[in-house]
């Protein structure tokens, strides 16, 4: 089929996004300039929980250059109340009622209460300082205990209390039996701390309402333009056709920028009111304080085990702090429950969960939102290993599923077919040489140096094995439009919205191969609701399979259509058509050839196409993910803990991963390394901290919320495992989230291994230097 010597799929083709990124000519949302554009700034609550008793914008309105100051009440009349973008994730969760900006009460520090629109951002912030708001403080609900207390002040009065949902224990398999026949039970209370996405680009939007046409054009930074569009249309009570959402370059997101934020809707309403474009960009303090946070979960876990190290069953109780306004948090326990047994032969599970509401930023999606399932399980395995004085690697090898042998499903009913988890463990074992490390570790200890080795194994649904909903799961099939242009290039229109993943490169690689043109003859169009097909956008690690797959099949369909028309033009049979070198010829008769562009032109010329030929040289394809499949692997880390200062250095980090067939190895590796860096950051540096009494947010600048730098992240060695193909054509699997899911337990396991001589047990994920010294007993624990 492929006549071109060079095959792009599987090669580290240079990204087509890079020339603009490297020359500073990318267009991010804060770069948008429109005639007559105004600037927005928000006035925000200094309190975590308070009633608004009065708001006076008189002085603010007087500032020269201020065009409008809108209170929460003003905006409430211009918008429709609703669950916002979180409604996407709601399922059957109770949804509170709240306004776009706070009207009667504020529910977190930074809750927006007013919007200022002015000639410049400086002036808008000046005027914001003159807005007078009277607050009546209420007790802040910050800790789980406070949220669970039925006497505590309800954050949403219409929900009655701060327990959003309690799911009683669901059981899978024979839990009682597992615990009855266990030789022993290992128990632990594990705490995962709150931290957050922190893309380098803050949130922002430009909303431009045209009074004449009644159309709203939104320039946004969003992972899915159609989802954002639906949000604007619903909450501004506008028909979908009157809303157009565009997205250009996006400075990272990791799950933050999905749908339309409350501030986005407020800017849309203000633009409609004023008939002028309005640009908003949050500052970093707003981003850290209010944009959303993640990973705030605690677990009580019991593992029923045999003395030989078999994990017979788990009992898990989970509490998740979903923050204030609804986000993903309420739905998360279901995802954790479904994944917590991982690629292991764990035959029984009892899972109970409670989701609480607090006066903190909303719990949102952050790269592998369900990651606590891996952290809890991989920590427990190490604790089990310790209990039995076994190597953690051995416990994993004993319990991991073997391909081709039962069980073929997790106890929660997900297929385990095609997993290479065992192979990834074996590969890491080869690369690490555990025995040699143990000798080195023992030797180092005699010199007062503390090295540790940690491993962890995981699988993720990227997109996951085929279910009744298809290989793409609940987010449905992926659509794509492909067209041959009159200049002989192929245009691909996708709802994918790259924000660092390089889809404009990877999808072009596949299209080029499957259609039969050079890579630079393919153009991938993203980010315009007028033009790209409906779809969720980018997220959930589904792009490789769903978008890759629809590109493959769509390109083949386009190719077939082109050859069909060419055959007609040549009065030959489609089987005799050959596509190569930018043209179509009759096989064996090179003189009878037409450049692709001319074939495309012919499709537009009346009389040249056959009567039954439909439309243009364009196809619309949909793909439901085929057989889908898991991605996953094993990571290992060697760390050194400085027991004088508590600082941890990651000396070596290894990855044995399986993400199916690689489209672009350099891009895959970039995704893995970036995710691992976030995981290392979570353990050593990052925490979204709140004062438990006042609810004040303590990590509101980059001096307090610390991201890892080039000095903290080592080289990461990546081994790609040979994958098990499950589908005849499409075996690309996602890799975007994996690094961030598996790195925290890997590093935590390594740290505990390093400080185990002091009897330390790591039951939490955030291990800054001070905490390390507390754990080893070098200093007293102060609270």
């Amino acid at each position, binding site marked *: 089929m492929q006549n071109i010597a060079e095959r792009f799929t599987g090669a580290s083709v240079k990204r087509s996004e890079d020339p603009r990124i490297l020359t500073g000519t990318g267009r991010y949302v804060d770069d948008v300039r429109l005639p007559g554009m105004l600037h927005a700034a928000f006035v925000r609550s200094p309190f975590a929980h308070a009633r608004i008793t009065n708001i006076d914008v008189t002085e603010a309105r007087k500032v020269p250059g201020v065009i409008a100051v809108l209170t929460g009440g003003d905006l409430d009349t211009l918008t429709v109340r609703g669950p916002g973008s979180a409604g996407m994730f709601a399922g059957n969760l109770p949804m509170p009622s709240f306004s776009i900006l706070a009207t009667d009460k504020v529910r977190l520090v930074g809750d927006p209460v007013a919007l200022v629109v002015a000639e410049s951002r400086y002036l808008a912030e000046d005027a914001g300082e003159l807005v007078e708001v009277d607050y009546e403080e209420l007790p802040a609900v910050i800790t789980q205990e406070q949220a669970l207390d039925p006497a505590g002040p309800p954050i949403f009065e219409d929900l009655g209390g701060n327990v959003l949902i309690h799911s009683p224990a669901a059981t899978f398999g024979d839990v009682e039996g597992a615990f009855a026949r266990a030789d022993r039970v290992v128990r632990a209370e594990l705490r995962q701390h709150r931290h957050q996405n922190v893309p380098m680009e803050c949130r922002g939007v430009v909303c431009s309402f045209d009074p004449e046409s009644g159309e709203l054009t939104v320039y946004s930074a969003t992972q899915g333009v159609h989802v954002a569009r639906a949000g604007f249309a619903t909450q501004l009570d506008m028909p979908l056709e009157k809303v157009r959402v565009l997205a250009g370059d996006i400075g990272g997101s990791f799950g933050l920028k999905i749908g339309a934020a409350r501030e986005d809707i407020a800017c849309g309403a203000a633009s409609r009111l004023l008939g002028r474009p309005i640009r908003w960009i949050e500052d970093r303090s707003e981003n850290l304080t209010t944009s959303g946070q993640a990973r705030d979960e605690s677990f009580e876990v019991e593992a029923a085990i045999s003395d030989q190290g078999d994990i017979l069953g788990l009992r898990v109780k989970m509490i998740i702090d979903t923050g204030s306004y609804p986000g993903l948090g309420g739905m998360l326990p279901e995802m954790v429950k479904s994944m917590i047994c991982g690629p292991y032969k764990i035959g029984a599970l009892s899972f109970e969960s409670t989701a609480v509401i607090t006066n903190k930023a909303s719990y949102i999606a952050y790269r592998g939102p369900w990651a606590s399932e891996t952290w809890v399980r991989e920590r427990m395995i190490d604790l089990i290993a310790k209990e039995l004085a076994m190597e953690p690697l051995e416990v994993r090898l004993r319990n991991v599923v073997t391909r081709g042998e039962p069980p073929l499903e997790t106890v929660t009913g997900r297929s385990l077919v095609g997993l290479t988890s065992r192979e990834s463990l074996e590969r890491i074992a080869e690369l690490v040489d555990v025995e040699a490390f143990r000798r080195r570790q023992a030797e180092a200890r005699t010199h007062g140096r503390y090295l540790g080795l940690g491993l962890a194994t995981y699988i993720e649904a990227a997109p996951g094995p085929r279910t009744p909903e298809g290989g793409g799961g609940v987010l449905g099939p992926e659509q794509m439009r492909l067209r041959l242009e009159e200049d002989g290039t192929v245009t691909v229109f996708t709802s994918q919205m790259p924000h660092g993943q390089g889809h404009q490169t990877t999808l072009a690689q596949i299209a080029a191969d499957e259609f039969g043109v050079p890579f630079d003859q393919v153009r991938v169009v993203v980010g315009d609701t007028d033009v790209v097909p409906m779809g969720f956008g980018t997220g959930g690690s589904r792009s490789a399979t769903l978008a890759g797959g629809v590109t493959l099949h769509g390109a083949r369909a386009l190719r077939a259509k082109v050859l069909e028309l060419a055959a007609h033009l040549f009065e030959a049979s489609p089987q005799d058509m050959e596509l190569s070198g930018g043209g179509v010829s009759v096989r064996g008769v090179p003189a009878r050839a037409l450049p692709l562009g001319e074939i495309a032109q012919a499709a537009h010329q009346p009389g040249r196409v056959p009567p039954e030929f439909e439309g243009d040289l364009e196809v619309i394809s949909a793909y439901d993910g085929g057989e889908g499949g898991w991605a996953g692997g094993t990571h290992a880390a060697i760390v050194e803990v400085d027991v004088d200062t508590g600082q941890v250095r990651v000396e070596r980090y290894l990855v044995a991963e399986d993400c199916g067939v690689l489209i672009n190895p350099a891009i895959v590796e970039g995704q893995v390394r970036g995710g691992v860096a976030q995981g290392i950051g979570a353990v050593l540096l990052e925490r979204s901290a709140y004062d438990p009494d006042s609810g004040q947010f303590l990590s509101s600048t980059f001096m307090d919320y610390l991201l890892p730098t080039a000095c903290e992240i080592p080289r990461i060695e990546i081994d790609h495992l040979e994958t098990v193909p499950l589908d005849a054509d499409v075996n690309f699997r996602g890799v975007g989230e994996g690094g961030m899911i598996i790195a925290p337990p890997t590093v935590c396991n390594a740290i505990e291994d390093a400080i185990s001589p002091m009897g330390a047990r790591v039951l939490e994920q955030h291990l800054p230097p001070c905490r390390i*010294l507390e754990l080893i007993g070098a200093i007293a624990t102060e609270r």
Partner: protein
Amino acid sequence: MALLQEHGEDARPLAGGQSLVPLLSLRLARPSHLVDLAGISELGTIVVEGDHLVIGAMVRERSAERHGDVRRLAPLLAQALPLIGHPAIRSRGTIGGSLSHADPAAELPAVALLLDADLVAQSSARGTRTITAADFFIGFFTTALEPDEILTEVRIHRPPPGTGSAIEEVARRHGDFAMVGAAAVVRLEDGKIADARVALTGVSGVPVRATEAETVLDGAEPTEEAFATAAEEAAKSLSPPADLHGSSAYRRHLAALLMRRTLKLAAQRAREAA
């Protein structure tokens, strides 16, 4: 200076801006006027006057870092400068600016304190005066400078023969403000400690001299045990603040650790210098 006099507390001098401009952006500082010191060329020089190194207040940290006379005549300062933030900060940040800002976690105030530097201030109304480092840092981000005064130069006496110095800090990441830092200067005579001085940052609102340690070490043998004992003694009297990055106990622990290490290294360098 006339402008500073005219506007009083409403005006702030602008040196490198690396500390002041973030305060403006975060809207934590609201001066009505900024007085830009960059144009005053007399403030931008480093000269040697006899046994003194005289550094103009507007000398950029990066320039001082690269300057041969600084390495020669103020080795502790040369050791401290690369610890300040990152090159892009040091290309703009100034010696005088850092000293005047008096961040409790900053390196230069501790260095000035340890070296008994003289800080020369000037105002339009009262002319010039010299303030010793010991009198200069009086509180949390507070110096002895009056609102209408600017720092014009820092005078550092070259160390006597047989002196060694060291500075070490523990920060969350490379280039961050120290959680705790220690700087030490040790002079040896006939193999014994003739003078030991050690200062700490991050344990109080101002840099502190660990006088208990200094007293214990006066005349003592420069052994590891002596330094460890002195450091432990000095650390006992500290009540460091607790924050997101570390507890009070942690900072006290680091203070003892870093005092011990810097004293040991300074003594070693003193031996080498003899």
